[in-house]
């Protein structure tokens, strides 16, 4: 499933990051790579933006980006 489909409080394992190179680099430097675990901390109205916790770092990202990250719900 996609990260976008998760809700506040959900935990998941990252399966695949399917974005362009530049964004992949940025996400990787935050620890968002295959095999990392994440928790959804907050969503704004209509999931325009989501806040996730990966390895102790809080990251804000847009719904469009969350749609490109494949996860497995834990």
């Amino acid at each position, binding site marked *: 499933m996609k990260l976008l489909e998760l809700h506040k409080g959900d935990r998941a394992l990252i399966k695949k990051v399917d974005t362009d190179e530049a964004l992949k680099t940025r996400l990787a430097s935050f620890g968002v790579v295959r095999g990392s675990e994440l928790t959804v901390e*907050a969503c704004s109205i209509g999931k325009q933006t989501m806040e996730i916790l990966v390895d102790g770092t*809080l990251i804000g990202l847009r719904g469009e980006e969350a749609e490109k990250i494949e996860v497995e719900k834990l």
Partner: protein
Amino acid sequence: MDTIKIVLAGQPNVGKSMLINAMSGSNGLKVGNFSGVTVEKTEVCFEHHCHQFEMVDLPGTYSIRGFSKEEKVAYEYLSNEEYDVIINVLDSTHLQRNLLLTLELLKLNKKMVLALNMADEAKKEGIDIDVKQLEKIIGVPVVLVSANTKEGVDELLDKIHDIADSCYRPKSNITYSDAMEEEILDIQKFLDDRGFKIRDLSSREIATRLLFEDKDLYKELRDEPIMIELQPLVLKALQHLYTHHETKNIKEIKYNEYNAIARGIKMEVIKCNRAGSGKNLTKKIDDVLIHKYFGIPIFLFLMWGLFHLIFTIGDIPVEIISRAFSSFGAWMGSHISNEFLRNVIVDGIIAGVGAVLSFLPNIILLYIGIALLETTGYMSRVAFLLDGFFHKFGLHGKSFIPLVTGFGCSVPAYMAARTLKSEKDRLITLFIIGFMSCGARLPIYMLFTSAFIEDKSIAGNVLFVIYISGALLGLVMAKILRVVVFKGEDEPFVMEMPKYRFPSFKLIWHTVYNNAKGYVKKAGSFILLASILVWVLATYPSQKGIEESYIAKIEQTQNMQEKLDLENELNVKKLENSYLGQIGKATEPFFRPLGFDWKMVVALESGLAAKEIVVSTLSILYNGKGDTLANRLRDSIPPASAMAFIVFVMLYLPCLAASMVFAKEAGGYKYLVYLFIFTTATAWIFSFITYKAVELFV
């Protein structure tokens, strides 16, 4: 004296600038709690143990090949410039992520020290770091420091001395995944058997670089005969890695490996990691501040509260200061016998500078508000909340940071826009920063609202509305620019949310103090000169003929009232025929549809140099004895013109200094011409609408 050149590198918001401030014992560098406070490399020099330390503060970079403009600064410096030691600054509470950059920095093969900053916070959160073990793995000295409490700073300085004097190379003990290690060993063995050497790289290092497809190394190896034998080995190894990592993208493999290493190191060196209190607190605050539905209302409420404070609390000392200046002027006037000197000082300098200085309390409150936003960590949250909304207007959530900075001053705001990666996002943001009313415009708004709004309790609301409508208009203009001029792809929004920090009094004090000092300094230098200039232009050429005829008339009348009227008429005539009057009259037709008289026109034009001068010019032109400037304005300007004037001030070109920075950041003076046309047209149209609307309804 020997010079040691030190460069600080690290991810954003790990406290590099604050660490330099702590090491050099000064407060020269700006610090805040969000990514991208430092956008330009800055140098600081100081002496330590008979060495001259030259510190270079680089903008934070998440990875060494970062892609936003300020990250490129860091990359280019690190790989091309000459320096002695790298201090890699890490946030102790986010060790794992920070180590990713460390792993990349190790590849530079330079002398390096790891400074684990925020050690005090880590301790509080129950994070215990095994420094010895970390040193063993990374192969470079590690020091626990805290820029905040200054613990470990001396040790760090000593370590830099030692390392600068020694001839040392980092020797790390990093282990990759089993698959990777297997292949490295294979290639390494082959290289050792052949006794192959290149530069000062170890055979293990060569093997790793070959597998990660290091372009420079391949270039060097191209002409080596060994390549023929090496090639099949590397190919086979890569195949193995592809299957192991389920991808054929070597960069992705590299990220996966690095992340695994960082995770491994964290497990090895962080001994006890009980759930910290700091993280939970951040979570709890976030539950409220970025709440799905309440987040934005809370933000708006906070902004509204700030402007109310600026008006209600800030206005108390304003009255006192402006009365003090007018009595000071009167006192000075009675003590200077030379008429020319008296006029310059009392009607020029004291009136002009005094008017500007009297708004210092409001400015201070505004800066306290901005400093709180910057240092607590709330700024990134607001960017998070507003991104959805901003995105609809073709702006990026991160644009919020330069835009908020713009409420303080446009100059740093233009520079802050560098954190935006996409050139188009950046240009749009640059174009609308001017619509965020800067601190220097605040005095103009204060002056007009206090002059035209009787009820003090709603004056704060009016101020809030002025700021918000400027911002909203900026958004609309951004949309127009996006649709008409800067079409194209959006930049993705991915941004670190820093931990909430309780704002330290010292930090707020320094930010506010520096800004307030800047304001007073400007009033004492630039504004002072401008006031003299405006006064001179308003006084000359002297019109002996008119003056004599009026004086004769005044002497003939017996009626006191008539005498006063004639005197006033004389003053008006003199002003109108002065150089300033001529300039104003010449350009007045352009502004006539907006209901501005020539004095307002001159004030606006002088505001192109600096917005504070609008106030000082008004103060000189609407000269009158005893009464406050606000009262004088109320008596001579119709409300519709006043409203249109505020709108014009809100939207027209920023000051000269800001315009120059804009041209530099946008990439040429032609953009400044565009900005001038864009802002002037917008200002004119909206002020015209305001003028007509107020005339109709009020």
